[in-house]
């Protein structure tokens, strides 16, 4: 945690000094991000949705959302977008209290979320900066075809890389990219090891609430960098030690008492009441042994690794392979497999009001997963960063009912 905090602080410090250092920022999104490629041009990545969720955890997003609604964004618009726009309108002060630089480029590397496209359309108007778009085809048949890979790789070569060269004023350095991708793969190995540790009983980690901290470095600005590799090596060792000691996960209230229910969770968490939400689980002895949200930045446990020998192809596969680019049957298979592999008692769907990428089809998925695994699903509703959509009593009621149902069935 300390290591991660330091990494984030350094990065935001660097971002706040761009007017002195002359460094340039590239705004991009977490799913299908081209982090290594951006760094290979010495450009600084900024992730607006991470800023939004960080603002929510610091209780600032409510005001930002209202600010965006004031200028005409509807109540139904994705609240990540509104938080970002509101933050920008209020001086673009990032979650660490430092000013964020304006983007020199908006790099849209995943189009599976239509909102991302609209989001950058809005930012383009605000910042009057160029946008480069990588069109990523949807995995409608549940697989990546050679044509899809070729199509994305070609765009990388013909559109994205030339644009990054133009913005940075630097020539594309393939060897530098390869070195970073090799480093990414090592971090990815360690992360998969950490996820798999949750197969132990008790699970040493909470793969959802704790998991969002574990994905911090690899999903954001650090994948491919030495400090990221160092972080995952340390995390892996810590988790291994917890397994050896037979320890359960750490919660905000300290050690978890007893692992009563093992769950797989589908959908992002609520960020505005993150701790309260987490407590509703750990207070009842519920541990999340796997979650789909912690895969939005890569489904590494299925074998994907960034590959220095096939650099652009692996970047293409990464963009094509992100969780929300999978069709519903694939998502059902992923969750059903996890329920079996991680010996989960059931699964919970947190349906996010303003995120269609995740929420569309979740009820159908639930039924399928129940059929496949024979385990019951619980269904709750909240939102990403709009505090008005978190109804604590209602969510607690549903979760408690769900846990009691699992208990009664066992």
């Amino acid at each position, binding site marked *: 945690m300390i290591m991660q905090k330091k990494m984030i602080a350094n990065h935001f410090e660097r971002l706040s000094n761009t007017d002195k250092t002359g460094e340039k920022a590239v705004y991009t999104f977490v799913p299908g991000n081209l982090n290594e490629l951006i760094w290979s041009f010495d450009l600084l990545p900024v992730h607006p949705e991470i800023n939004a969720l960080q603002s929510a955890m610091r209780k600032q997003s409510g005001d930002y959302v209202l600010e965006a609604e004031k200028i005409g964004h509807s109540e139904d618009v994705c609240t990540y977008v509104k938080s970002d726009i509101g933050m920008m309108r209020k001086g673009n002060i990032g979650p660490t209290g430092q000013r964020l630089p304006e983007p020199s480029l908006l790099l849209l590397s995943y189009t599976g979320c239509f909102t991302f496209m609209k989001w950058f359309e809005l930012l383009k108007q605000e910042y009057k900066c160029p946008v480069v778009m990588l069109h990523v085809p949807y995995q409608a048949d549940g697989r990546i075809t050679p044509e899809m890979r070729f199509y994305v790789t070609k765009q990388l070569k013909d559109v994205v890389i030339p644009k990054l060269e133009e913005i940075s004023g630097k020539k594309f350095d393939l060897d530098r990219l390869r070195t970073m991708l090799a480093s990414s793969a090592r971090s990815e190995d360690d992360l998969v090891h950490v996820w798999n540790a949750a197969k132990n009983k008790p699970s040493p980690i909470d793969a959802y609430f704790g998991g969002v901290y574990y994905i911090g470095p690899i999903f954001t600005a650090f994948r491919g960098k030495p400090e990221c590799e160092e972080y995952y090596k340390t995390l892996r060792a810590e988790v291994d030690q917890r397994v050896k000691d037979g320890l359960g996960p750490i919660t905000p209230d300290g050690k978890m008492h007893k692992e009563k229910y093992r769950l797989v969770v589908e959908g992002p968490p609520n960020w505005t009441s993150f701790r309260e939400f987490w407590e509703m689980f750990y207070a009842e002895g519920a541990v999340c042994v796997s979650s789909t949200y912690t895969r939005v930045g890569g489904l590494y446990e299925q074998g994907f690794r960034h590959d220095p020998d096939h650099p652009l192809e692996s970047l293409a596969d990464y963009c094509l392979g992100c969780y929300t680019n999978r069709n519903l049957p694939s998502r059902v298979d992923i969750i059903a497999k996890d329920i079996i592999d991680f010996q989960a008692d059931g699964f919970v769907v947190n349906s996010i009001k303003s995120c269609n990428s995740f929420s569309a089809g979740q009820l159908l998925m639930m*039924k399928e997963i129940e059929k496949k695994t024979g385990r*019951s699903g619980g*269904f709750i509703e909240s939102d990403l960063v709009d505090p008005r*959509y978190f*109804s604590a009593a*209602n969510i607690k009621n549903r979760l408690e*009912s769900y846990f*009691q*149902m699992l208990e009664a*069935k066992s």
Partner: protein
Amino acid sequence: MDAYVGIDLGSTTTKAVFLDEHDRLMGFGITNSRSDYDVACQIAREEAEINSRFSILRRELKTHIPGEGHDLAVAWLYQKYRLAQHTRQLTALAATCRKAVDLLPVAEHRAPTHLLLEQILSEMEVEAVGLFKPGADARSDFFRDIAASTFLHLSEKKAGDDSKMLDRLIGTFDKSILQVESKSYANAFGEYIQFAADAVQRMPEFQVHQAAIQTAVKNTVAVVFKIINTIGTGYGRQRLPFPKEQIRSEILCHGLGAHFMFPNTRTVLDIGGQDTKAIQIDATGIVTNFQMNDRCAAGCGRYLGYIADEMNIGLHELGPLAMKSKKQVKINSTCTVFAGAELRERLALGEAREDMLAGLHRAIILRAMSLLARSGGVVSEFTFTGGVAKNQAATDALRKLIEENYGEMKINISPDSIFTGAIGAALFAKRDRKGDLIGVDLKALQKPVPSKVEGPVAKVQERA
């Protein structure tokens, strides 16, 4: 006698149920939830205990009085008991109102208000006697409702055109009723039932059964309930004075309660004051899936309450009025606020009230249908519970929509459906009895709240 207690603390009413060792329901209690959940919970429990004693009394009398006679005797005993209880509460109300008038800020208002207050109170006492007899039209079981309606009516009559006086009288009542209804008056079963027995024995048709009544009453009073375990549920369950282990989600309780009432139930729909639950259960009454409304309570019981206010009619009049509809108007909104606006708009356009109400009931049920579909559909037998299940317009709309969407189906609606959650809780209380809950301190529940109001039953007897 061993008893297992289930308490369902709902947003509108609090219900309690006593269950015996052989899974037989002994008694039900219900009270309005008011702002004090602890008191609501205690009063409901006490009401259930009284009701259980009446079950015992009925059994006792049945052995002594042949034919239908015992039923009538119990009915009279019950009504006289209620009269004693009501009179005790009236006495308390009178004392509290007098104190409130003494504290009126303007000194010269006090004497004239006292004068009218005494006239009102005295007429209320007289009216009360007529309210409690078998077959009387019970406007409500709750003292608050009965007293409020009489007080308001008498105040209007006495104050005439003096609207300021009317305000003072109503203000006095509002302040006082809160204190009175928050006190327990139910821990004097022996005293009230003796009053009732004395009154009933004097009635010509029961004079021959004098000895039987006395014996039955004596035996009933002697019963000591030993509460083995209590489980709480409902919207306000976190506020129940129980340890966490004695609290169950109302979804589980409704499932088990519906299974108890109709063992072949597989799908349960509960529409309560502020939530709607669609529940699937297995052959043993255990929940296998459920869906409920999110934080918006649109389309729940409160929605009907709001509409009733909007139309300036009583909640219980909504259903019967909707049943008179000849043409159904489509109401688009189940959002309480929007529906109110839509209602006013359509009234302005000349639509009939009954037609709009029929549309509103259908709108509520459509919303419930969506939750049912999400929970896994409707599987026979289907049981409808909750306060809204008492509304015939709602049940008719439901039957129609269920048939349209799922075909013919056995639909169960019990007149006691409001107690479904409490029954489920009592059954859980019994199931858990062998767990580690025995010995848990239940004193918080069992300790009666001392009544500070003096109100000798002797006075009631004289008047009766």
